[in-house]
């Protein structure tokens, strides 16, 4: 049991439990709140006495700890306790060995003396040697910048000078920004601030260094979704990066198809990088087709272990439409991708996306953490073309406070480890390595390249050029400069222009060129992994600096194999030439080109993965804005389909499969029709047997599917538009669903509908036990209305016709009685929105 005045924040408690505490008495935290109550400074709370305070504090802390445990994938406190899942940054081996044995700590750091010194400084604030009364303590500027408080990467000087530089294209202002950023903010708050360049080569003339135009192609803007930021800012970033020849990133909120084609004046608002995150918002075949890079976001540097969170206030009709979700309902992306539970699953998703768009490179975004090199090696073996190592000091003003301060690690560590591991395994040449996290100046870029990165992401800095002043109000929808808000009035105040981003990034490139000339590098490629050109800056005078040891990250990558190349020189072999789709596309030429009806039979085997996706991509490329008419292409498969059957199948294509299917059937279904039934000559009862694997229809946005049998677990997770009939499902069905319809003519597993905020499910609850199996936090169970019944009956009839289902037939035959056994799952918010729309229509009509 720990009795301590120190523990007050969630992280402190997590740390104590993580290192074995059974109980914590944070007496000073309690006393501080007691005092607040006495002083009347507790705002907006109804706590009346100290007991209530203790109980409220315990509750809040408990929720915070649960959140942290969830991030780490741990479900019980018992497993978390003593698990020591932490990495120390900046503690000496003396402290680690004595107090945290076994904890990863890669750069050394402060000693017990420095810890004592820090304690004393804090103590002196409350008990100064002078006898003047202390009336009030200083604000340490933990989360918000304060003069004289903690150092922040963005302070008034960096923000205002960067804005001036970007708006007026004024180089002097840029140098004043870069100087302050490099010498003050970066130095005070990052590892790279403590490094300096070492001259190994002779300086060259700047004319010999590759051009700024070439350099900026290596720049990308960060994955900030439309929704988290306003249309104006999202589009400005895209326009800027398209002008520049770099890449902007959709983030995980989808993209309005209108942006896929340039406007009349040739301005393109299309984001080159289309992100595929766990929420799969708006990930349609059209979205995938219109990309140059498809980025699988495994994790976010600023808040590892958490998904995107968009508060309901920011989900207006436009955002909801693009995300296929419900206006006004907050969107929380699940921490994991439901189709990734192993490295094989990542390989499968990479393969799926490569099929969806063969010209796009596939990227996997990881975060800096100890062991990321091993993970990266696995992902490269899983055939990714591109890797992002995201650092912790990057943005998202909407991150939970615990994550802002205590989650994630510097990219310096991650990039160094990834580069070293990939080189050691001779995998580095197969992949492009990118890093991001508060990269601001040419110096930052140079250090990233020397540590091993060849591309560089910028997020906060471009936003600052567009007007962001680091309000840290992104989660409140009150951004006063129209960036992180969907409020129409506030959006009018957006004053950013794409030119501001362009100006800034060109100045960064120039800054980098000057460093390159000084160091004797003609191209960025030559710089990659040249850690011998970096050394610790021993001149930095700071009482906490002593004891830092960068030898780990400054260690040259070991080349075990002959002819190992240390930057991207070759492309991955995705094995697309073996795809069944090559045959399908060939047979469907006329259908694709002219919409001619085409139908044929085809045998299938479980080595045929991702069937129909490449075909859909071909259709989407030709049919840019309109669709093929229903059943233009009909393919009758026979056999056992491999994984990702009919993934992102587009409208106009119907797949009929006699046999069974593996995992991920109809993943991302984009309008296609999918009918699966067991072999007609089979003797077993179809409705009692599993017909398809896990995660069917994950992230489906449109289309129909009829399954004559049971689907396994995680059925229809994140469905946002498809209409599906199935005869039974496993656990976690319809989780996080935001649209579409699911008709389940049999039993369901546990935890049905967790987080479901849109769409409707009809369950044939023959046993009357469905209520016990669902997670009713977000929806209600309702009886069916007249209109529901006719809708349902139509779907069941279709199911019967397509699959010859006897279950459907029996229900229809006994409709009078059977229809009474259906339960309607109606998300509360969805119902509200539907009602609002109805009222609106009535008043308009």
């Amino acid at each position, binding site marked *: 049991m720990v009795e301590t005045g120190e523990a007050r924040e969630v992280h402190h408690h997590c740390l104590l439990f993580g290192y074995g505490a059974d109980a914590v008495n944070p007496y000073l935290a309690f006393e501080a709140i007691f005092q607040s109550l006495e002083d009347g400074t507790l705002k907006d709370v109804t706590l009346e006495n100290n007991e209530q305070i203790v109980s409220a504090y315990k509750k809040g802390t408990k929720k915070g700890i649960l959140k942290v445990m969830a991030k780490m994938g741990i479900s019980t406190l018992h497993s978390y306790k003593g698990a020591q899942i932490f990495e120390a940054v900046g503690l000496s081996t003396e402290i680690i060995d004595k107090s945290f044995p076994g904890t990863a700590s890669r750069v050394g750091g402060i000693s017990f003396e420095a810890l004592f010194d820090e304690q004393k400084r804090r103590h*002196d604030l409350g008990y*100064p040697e002078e006898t003047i009364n202390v009336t009030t303590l200083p604000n340490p500027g933990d989360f918000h*910048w304060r003069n004289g408080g903690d150092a922040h990467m963005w302070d*008034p000087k960096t923000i205002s000078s960067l804005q001036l530089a970007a708006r007026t294209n004024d180089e002097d202002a840029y140098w004043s920004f870069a100087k302050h950023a490099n010498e003050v903010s970066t130095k005070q708050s990052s590892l790279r601030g403590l490094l300096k360049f070492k001259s190994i080569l002779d300086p060259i003339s700047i004319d010999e260094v590759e051009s700024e135009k070439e350099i900026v192609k290596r720049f990308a803007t960060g994955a900030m979704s439309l929704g988290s930021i306003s249309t104006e800012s999202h589009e400005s970033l895209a326009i800027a990066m398209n002008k520049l020849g770099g890449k902007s990133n959709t983030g995980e909120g989808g993209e309005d198809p209108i942006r896929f084609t340039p406007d009349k004046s040739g301005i393109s608002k299309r984001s080159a990088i289309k992100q595929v995150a766990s929420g799969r918002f708006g990930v349609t075949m059209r979205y995938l087709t219109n990309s140059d890079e498809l980025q699988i976001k495994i994790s976010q540097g600023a808040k590892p272990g958490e998904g995107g969170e968009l508060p309901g206030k920011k989900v207006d009709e436009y955002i909801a439409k693009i995300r296929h979700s419900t206006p006004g309902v907050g969107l929380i992306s699940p921490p994991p991708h439901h189709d990734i539970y192993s490295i094989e699953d990542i390989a499968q998703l990479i393969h799926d996306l490569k099929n969806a768009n063969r010209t796009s490179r596939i990227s996997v975004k990881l975060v800096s953490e100890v062991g990321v090199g091993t993970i990266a090696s696995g992902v490269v073996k899983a055939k990714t073309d591109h890797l992002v190592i995201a650092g912790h000091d990057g943005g998202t003003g909407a991150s939970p406070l615990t994550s802002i301060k205590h989650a994630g690690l510097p990219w310096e560590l991650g990039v160094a480890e990834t580069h070293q591991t990939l080189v050691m395994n001779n995998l580095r040449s197969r992949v492009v390595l990118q890093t991001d996290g508060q990269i601001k100046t040419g110096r930052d870029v140079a250090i990233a390249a020397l540590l091993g990165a060849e591309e560089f992401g910028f997020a906060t800095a471009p936003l600052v050029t567009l*007007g962001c002043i*680091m309000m840290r109000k992104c989660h409140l929808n009150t951004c*006063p400069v129209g960036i992180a808000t969907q409020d129409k009035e506030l959006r009018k105040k957006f004053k950013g222009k794409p030119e501001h981003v362009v100006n800034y990034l060109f100045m960064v490139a120039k800054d980098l060129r000057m460093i390159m000339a000084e160091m004797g590098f003609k191209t960025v490629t030559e710089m990659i992994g040249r850690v011998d050109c970096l050394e610790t800056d021993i001149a930095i005078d700071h009482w906490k600096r002593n004891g830092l040891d960068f030898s780990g990250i400054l260690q040259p990558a070991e080349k075990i194999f002959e002819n190992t190349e240390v930057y991207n020189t070759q492309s991955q072999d995705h094995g697309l030439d073996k795809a069944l789709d090559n045959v399908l596309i060939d047979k469907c030429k006329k259908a694709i080109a002219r919409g001619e009806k085409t139908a044929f039979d085809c045998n299938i085997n479980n080595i045929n993965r991702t069937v129909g996706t490449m075909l859909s991509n071909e259709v989407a490329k030709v049919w840019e804005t309109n669709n093929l008419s229903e059943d233009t292409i009909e393919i009758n498969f026979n056999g056992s389909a491999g994984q990702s059957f009919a993934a992102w199948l587009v409208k106009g294509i119907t797949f009929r499969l006699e046999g069974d299917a593996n995992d991920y059937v109809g993943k991302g279904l984009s309008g296609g029709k999918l009918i699966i039934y067991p072999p007609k000559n089979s003797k077993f009862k179809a409705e009692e047997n599993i017909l398809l694997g896990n995660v069917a229809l994950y992230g489906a946005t449109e289309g129909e599917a009829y399954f004559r049998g049971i689907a396994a677990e995680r059925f229809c997770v994140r469905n946002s538009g498809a209409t599906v009939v199935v005869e039974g499902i496993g656990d976690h069905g319809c989780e996080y669903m935001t649209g579409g319809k699911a008709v389940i003519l049999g039993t369901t597993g546990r935890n049905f509908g967790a987080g479901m905020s849109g769409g409707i499910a009809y369950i044939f609850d023959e046993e009357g036990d469905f209520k016990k199996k669902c997670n009713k936090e977000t929806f209600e169970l309702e009886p069916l209305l007249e209109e529901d019944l006719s809708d349902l009956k139509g779907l069941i009839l279709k199911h019967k016709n397509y699959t010859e289902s006897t279950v459907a037939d029996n229900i229809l035959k006994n409709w009078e009685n059977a229809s009474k056994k259906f339960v309607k799952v109606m998300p509360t918010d969805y119902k509200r929105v539907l009602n609002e729309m109805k009222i609106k229509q009535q008043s308009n009509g």
Partner: protein
Amino acid sequence: MGKTTGFKEFSRAVEPYRPAKERVLDFKEIYTDHDDEKLAVQGARCMDCGVPFCQSGEGCPVYNLIPEWNDLVYQNKWEEAFDKLMLTNNFPEVTGRVCPAVCEGACVLGITESPVAIKNLEFAIADKGFQNGWLKPQIPQNRTGKSVAIVGSGPAGLSAAQQLNSVGHKVKVYERADRIGGLMMYGIPNMKLDKSIIDQRLEIMEMEGIEFYTNADVGGKGENSVSVKELDESNDIVLMTTGATNPRDLPIPQREGVGVYFAMDFLRKNTKSLLDSEHDDGNFISAKDKNVIVIGGGDTGTDCIGTSLRHGCKSLINFEIMPEPPKERADNNPWPLFPRVYKVDYGHEESKEIYGDDPRVYSISGKEFLRNEDGTLRGIKTIEVDKNFQEIPGTEKEWEADLILLAMGFLGPEEYSVNSLDIELDERSNYKAEHNVHQTSNPKVFAAGDCRRGQSLVVWAINEGRAAAREIDRHLMGSTTLK
């Protein structure tokens, strides 16, 4: 933090001044009573920025904890707000009245809307502190045995005095005038800063143990002179806070003679006579029934306008050599810089109320004073200038005037106090010392305020006084807890 959506709901509203026609009849303060509810609304407008530029180096020079006290005012917790205010600012009762509010220029809300009325909040918090007796003398219980002599009792000197005394040093303040306060006493006229406010503050400082010596002309030659050498020898440190009192002249023909005065002489005599005798002694330069021209468009010029109007001048014109500033920020003057835009100060408003016109004439430069044969002033000949101050031929004009006041800024400290202390000067003839170091070429002598940085704002003087005190304490004791 104020109210989350307060900035969207409420507009900026500043406390009104007393009606112009009424207030020009006296030298009482121009302000009206504070309205707590309206101030709370301004507090509610504060957005509690992640990076509060208002309290940064781009904003308030003393780093006032503006977001904190905005919120406390919104919550009606005035005493706590006062405590927070006193942490950073030695004389909020002065800056709340006379500061041009650099903070408001840097207020983030000002990017897209109008800034929070921060200055009014500071003003009200400070007044409440005095009225409710929250301001108590901070008497140090232990004395260090070190002594510091401070030369000059303006805002830099007084803030340094307060800071140094608070950590136990013996502080003696020397002032050549008959009243303590420097520019706060005799520079700023009474209607902008009532002198009883200064008296109240000085009373507390005396209780804290600070010694004041008036009519003590350090380095002077007259009967009130105090020997620099003696001061130097009898103290551990001498801090120069003598201000930039050397006025810029207008060396054009016929300058010599009656009718042309420096603004500071005009303002000082006015305030002294007012305080000594309510103007009964007649020891001031009167503008009554005169055609007055004020040359210089800064705050001092405005104070000359306000004072002349209160004397009952016949007409009033104000010359400014710069062109009329734009209504909104120019491209080279972006947020968070202090906005150089067209403003109507109290004197301009009063003048317009009385004569119907704004008194200001821009892009104009004096060519020659015009005098009658007996030497009395009859006016001034001017010429228009372009934005580079080049004269535009053919634009000469004669203006009638029998009192011309020169409010054209200051050129650094007056020469005499420096002589025997062996202090190097910088190229602008200020005492040479680095900001936040403040030690001059004579290691025992420190310098702060306008005499070091050149003419500036009261709030910068406070910044300098505090910084110098901190460095002096560090110098004397090896370390410091002063901020």
